[in-house]
């Protein structure tokens, strides 16, 4: 139809360029005819007998002619491409447009005067060529000297299409990237839009659907269609058609309408989506989407669900701000579309769009809430000072419960916000009186569900910023204290009534009490999560993922930690250093943890401490599930806290002896293995004090009773013990120089054999459980321990014939030797550290991953 394929065109273009180049000096004198575009130098070709014939070189202008004589000639009408406002074409119908080329040699001679009319398709081929077939069937090509010239005239054609001759079109044709074909992109042209007739049959709807589908293929058509959808009331029309069709049970129409709405959603346009979920459209749209060509014989009942059994929009207290209310509703409806109505339909692209809109709406809601008085009124429900006013409210207890649900929902919503927004929102919550709410949930309310929600809120806030609650609360109280001294009462009334714990321990104290007293397993799990978050020295358990959130605290918290701590933790710019209290110092943090060990830990671990003090291990109020939590917590503080601080506590209170007892037969296997893992983790710390203590207290004894119970089986217990033994023998290998990768055999100036903690432990275990080990020589991991021991003895005998003692003494001399050993054999140490870390992080994951 039009001149040539892409390949042909390229050839032609090459030829034309040459032609154009010959005359390049002659462009200075522009023809002074009245024109609507700047004249651009061009060669004109026409196709004759299948050959392009050069008909001359000249200057091309786009011209508009007024047909009506009473109007002035619209010079600027189509001159600049951008000026067109897309306004009403009807006003301009009295115009004609032409592409005119005047001979450069003789400006009076017109080489070409071609009207833009009918449904001519203009092709812009590559950068400098415009090609078309006019209504008389002539193929014409304009080859521009510069691409800018081509741009100008294409801009003109676009304007003409908009305002003068709607049915012409401009298409860009480019060779595709792989060079084998061509890519067409519509720049301007008539857009087939869906019918807006009030009555439509299946045929019309089918056509509309087809048009809508086709229009998604090109950016231009898509944008024009979106414009149409937003300007016209097409969606209202669809809903009207739907209501009639549903009334008349016209299934085909219903299915077509559903397909049309789905196609509109695929336009991925935010305005369209928002239009669909506003008050006047949402039910109609959801109704239409109840029909689905995928399930042609069925109908979903979304509307019925929404109106009767579905989620209710609850207003704990009346929401006075209408705009906020609208936002909340919109948010919910979009979520409903995303999660329910369109769940099988949305692709990733559309899903992301909806998520983006939701995030936007949520951000709006959050900032609204900070400014509005609504939250203040909610918080007032829990303020002990308002007892009298609140007493007049109906269903106060119910309102308080719902209020916590509401606050919880706000906090859930806030999780997607950016960190700064989150901080602001949480600060606002605490300032407005969150502590009263928590106090109510934990001290007055006994409903587990409410407590779970309250704990969840705490977790969200402290995972974001560990000290936020504490700092804001602190500021608030000190301000109030400054103002009125007697307000000290308030401090007591807001949760510190026991007067035992310091301000910074208040939250920990409350959570500890709940963990030890509340029997709800779900709540317990959550409280443990909150406790570990509060007690985590990194201040954030998902550090790697959300490091930017908490890195500022990480630095400050990471005091006095052992070399095992990950030094490679990313520390991005501290862009929100204002979040934490500026006078927060390491000292304060140290005090925080020492307060914990003084005030909280003795209570938190009391079931374990009491056990050691002779209380029976299975009292009614210490159930096994609680003990599992506590034993995991022991492992946690041993591995994550300042070594000296936690170790002093653990050893002084004799906690490991209790943990050891929990491996005995009268406990459930889950607890026994949890206890075993705790020893494994502590052992991996390679800490001299722990190692000596654990050997001298015989805490390992129950492990081998546990092993004998299970040795004939292949189960998790055996796997767990196998892992335990493997760690020991693996750690001994470098010491013995059995590892090919290590530079050993150890050359030492002294006659001493290196006695790492693991070598000592291995020797101890072999001595103590020799009977067990030698009874199961076919069990490889036990044999490994024996082998290691034997080789060690050989090595020892060779190197130091005088030292024949099996078990080295645990005295102060030995201590120094040990330290030396560790520091001298760096490969060993590094290997240990690496393995410790891996192991620890693995176990640690299982303990804390719930927080991710």
């Amino acid at each position, binding site marked *: 139809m039009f001149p040539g394929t892409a390949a042909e065109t390229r050839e032609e273009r090459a030829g034309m360029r040459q032609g154009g180049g010959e005359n390049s000096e002659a462009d200075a004198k522009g023809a002074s005819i009245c024109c609507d575009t700047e004249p651009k130098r061009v060669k004109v070709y026409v196709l004759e007998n299948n050959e392009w014939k050069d008909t001359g070189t000249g200057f091309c202008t786009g011209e508009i002619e007024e047909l009506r004589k009473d109007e002035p000639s619209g010079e600027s009408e189509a001159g600049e491409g951008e000026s067109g406002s897309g306004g009403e074409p009807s006003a301009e119908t009295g115009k004609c447009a032409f592409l005119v080329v005047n001979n450069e040699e003789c400006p009076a001679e017109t080489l070409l005067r071609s009207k833009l009319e009918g449904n001519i398709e203009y092709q812009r081929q590559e950068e400098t060529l415009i090609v078309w077939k006019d209504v008389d069937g002539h193929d014409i090509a304009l080859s521009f000297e510069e691409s800018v010239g081509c741009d100008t005239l294409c801009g003109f054609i676009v304007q003409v299409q908009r305002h003068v001759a709607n049915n012409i079109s401009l298409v860009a044709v480019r060779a595709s990237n792989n060079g084998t074909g061509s890519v067409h992109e519509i720049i301007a042209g008539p857009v087939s839009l869906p019918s807006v007739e009030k009555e439509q049959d299946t045929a019309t709807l089918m056509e509309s659907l087809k048009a809508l589908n086709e229009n998604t293929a090109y950016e231009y058509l898509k944008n024009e269609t979106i414009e149409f959808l937003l300007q016209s009331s097409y969606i209202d029309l669809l809903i009207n058609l739907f209501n009639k069709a549903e009334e008349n049970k016209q299934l085909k129409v219903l299915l077509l309408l559903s397909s049309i709405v789905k196609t509109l959603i695929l336009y991925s346009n935010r305005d369209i989506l928002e239009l669909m979920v506003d008050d006047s459209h949402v039910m109609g749209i959801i109704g239409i989407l109840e029909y689905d060509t995928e*399930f042609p*014989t*069925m109908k*979903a009942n979304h509307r019925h669900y929404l109106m009767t059994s*579905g*989620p*209710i*929009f*609850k*207003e*704990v207290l009346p929401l006075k701000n209408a705009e*906020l*209310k609208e936002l*909340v509703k919109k948010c*919910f409806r979009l979520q*409903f579309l995303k*999660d*329910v109505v369109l*769940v*099988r339909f949305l692709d990733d692209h559309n899903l992301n769009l909806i998520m983006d809109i939701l995030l936007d709406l949520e951000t709006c*809601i959050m900032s609204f809430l900070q400014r509005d008085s*609504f939250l203040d009124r909610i918080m007032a429900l829990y303020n002990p000072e308002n007892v009298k006013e609140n007493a007049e409210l109906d269903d106060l207890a119910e309102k308080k419960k*719902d209020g916590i*649900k*509401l606050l919880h*929902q706000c906090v859930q919503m806030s999780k997607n916000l950016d960190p700064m927004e989150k901080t602001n929102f949480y600060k606002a919550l605490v300032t407005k009186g969150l502590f009263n709410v928590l106090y109510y949930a934990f001290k007055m309310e006994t409903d587990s*569900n409410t407590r*779970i929600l309250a704990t969840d809120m705490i977790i969200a806030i402290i995972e974001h910023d560990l000290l936020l609650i504490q700092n804001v609360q602190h500021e608030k109280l000190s301000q109030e204290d400054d103002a009125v001294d007697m307000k000290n009462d308030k401090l007591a009334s807001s949760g510190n009534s026991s007067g035992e714990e310091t301000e910074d321990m208040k939250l920990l104290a409350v959570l500890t009490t709940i963990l030890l007293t509340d029997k709800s*397993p*779900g*709540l317990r*799990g*959550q409280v443990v999560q909150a406790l570990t978050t509060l007690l985590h020295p990194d201040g954030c358990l998902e550090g790697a993922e959300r490091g930017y959130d908490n890195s500022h605290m990480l630095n400050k918290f990471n005091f006095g930690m052992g070399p095992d701590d990950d030094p490679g933790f990313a520390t991005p710019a501290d862009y929100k250093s204002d979040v934490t209290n500026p006078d927060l110092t390491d000292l304060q943090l140290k005090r925080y943890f020492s307060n914990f060990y003084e005030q909280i830990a003795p209570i938190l671990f009391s079931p374990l401490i009491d056990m050691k003090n002779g209380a029976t291990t299975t009292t009614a109020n210490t159930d096994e599930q609680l003990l599992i939590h506590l034993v995991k917590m022991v492992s946690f503080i041993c591995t994550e806290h300042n070594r000296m601080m936690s170790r002093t506590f653990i050893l002084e209170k004799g906690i490991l002896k209790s943990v050891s007892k929990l491996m005995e037969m009268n406990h*459930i*296997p*889950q607890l026994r*293995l949890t206890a075993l*893992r705790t020893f*494994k983790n502590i052992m991996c710390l390679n800490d001299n004090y722990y190692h000596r203590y654990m050997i001298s207290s015989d805490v390992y004894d129950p492990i081998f009773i546990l092993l004998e119970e299970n040795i004939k*089986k*292949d*189960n*998790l*217990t*055996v*796997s*767990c013990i*196998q*892992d*335990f033994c*493997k760690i020991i023998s693996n750690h001994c290998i470098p010491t013995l120089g059995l590892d090919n990768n290590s530079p050993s055999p150890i050359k030492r100036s002294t006659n001493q054999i290196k006695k790492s903690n693991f070598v000592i432990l291995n020797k101890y275990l072999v001595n103590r459980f020799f009977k067990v080990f030698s009874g199961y020589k076919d069990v490889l*991991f036990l044999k490994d321990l024996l082998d290691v021991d034997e080789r060690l003895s050989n090595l020892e005998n060779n190197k130091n014939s005088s030292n024949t003692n099996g078990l080295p003494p645990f005295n102060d001399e030995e201590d120094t030797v040990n330290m030396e050993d560790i520091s001298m054999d760096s490969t060993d140490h590094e290997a240990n550290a690496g393995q410790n870390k*891996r192991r620890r*992080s*693995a176990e640690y*994951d*299982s303990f804390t*991953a*719930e927080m*991710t």
Partner: protein
Amino acid sequence: MNLDHTLELLRQGKHIPEETVYSLCLELQELLINEANVSYVDTPVTICGDIHGQLHDLLTLFEKSGGVEKTRYIFLGDFVDRGFYSLESFLLLLCYKLRYPDRITLIRGNHETRQITKVYGFYDEVLRKYGNCNVWRYCCEVFDYLSLGAIINNKIFCVHGGLSPDVDTLDAIRGIDRKQEVPHEGPMCDLLWSDPDDVETWSLSPRGAGFLFGKNEVDKFLHGNDIELIARAHQLVMEGYKEMFDGGLVTVWSAPNYCYRCGNIAAVLEIDDQLQRNYTIFEAVQPQDGVGNAIIPTKKPQMDYFL
């Protein structure tokens, strides 16, 4: 807890009280703690691949393959995420496991972890169905106890993902303390994450966890452990199953029309007493509720909303 009643509720996709889930999960812990990292299973047995929360297709699976009363099953993991009935699917399997401990072997998949379920649907599903995540927590505890693999008649090794450079022998798997969140590296991670591919040797996996392994690694593992076949899941196969490496490895996929849109068929692999392989393929069918009414699978909407 009335197991039959719970099973009936589950088959109908109905709500299970939190307390029931809790006690079910505790019982399963006790049961699973006594299982090996690599469970021994006898023939005849039917191997099933990924389920991904497609409860109704899971019911079809049982229907097409003999049912749990008559057939022994190994499930290769990925019970949860993606589909809209992760909880019901997983609990159904747990109930069957409790009812017929010797007839069902459950192997852990890479989706049976806290981290993955938080992203791919199970966590959100629980949150929508219960308003809090307790039930998710209970289930995650059970995930930690699931086996890492199974061995049929000492001849067929079953695992969710594939091989690991750290695992030459089955005994190496026994030494893993499996009760933990799946680590980001190491043998336990690889078993759940690796994929077979046309590679010369161990290669980086595009998944970011586990490895790609080729015929060499498979041959070596088969020979070294004197086994005939590695049966695994983990990858969508449009035809339901796919044998590779001269029949030394098979991928079994049991979620038809995956994600309700992939258009694939599903398969289970029955191993008879002569270790012959017999594939049964099945398609997604129109799901029904408990009383035979057709239903459209969908997510449960969120609970009440406030403000």
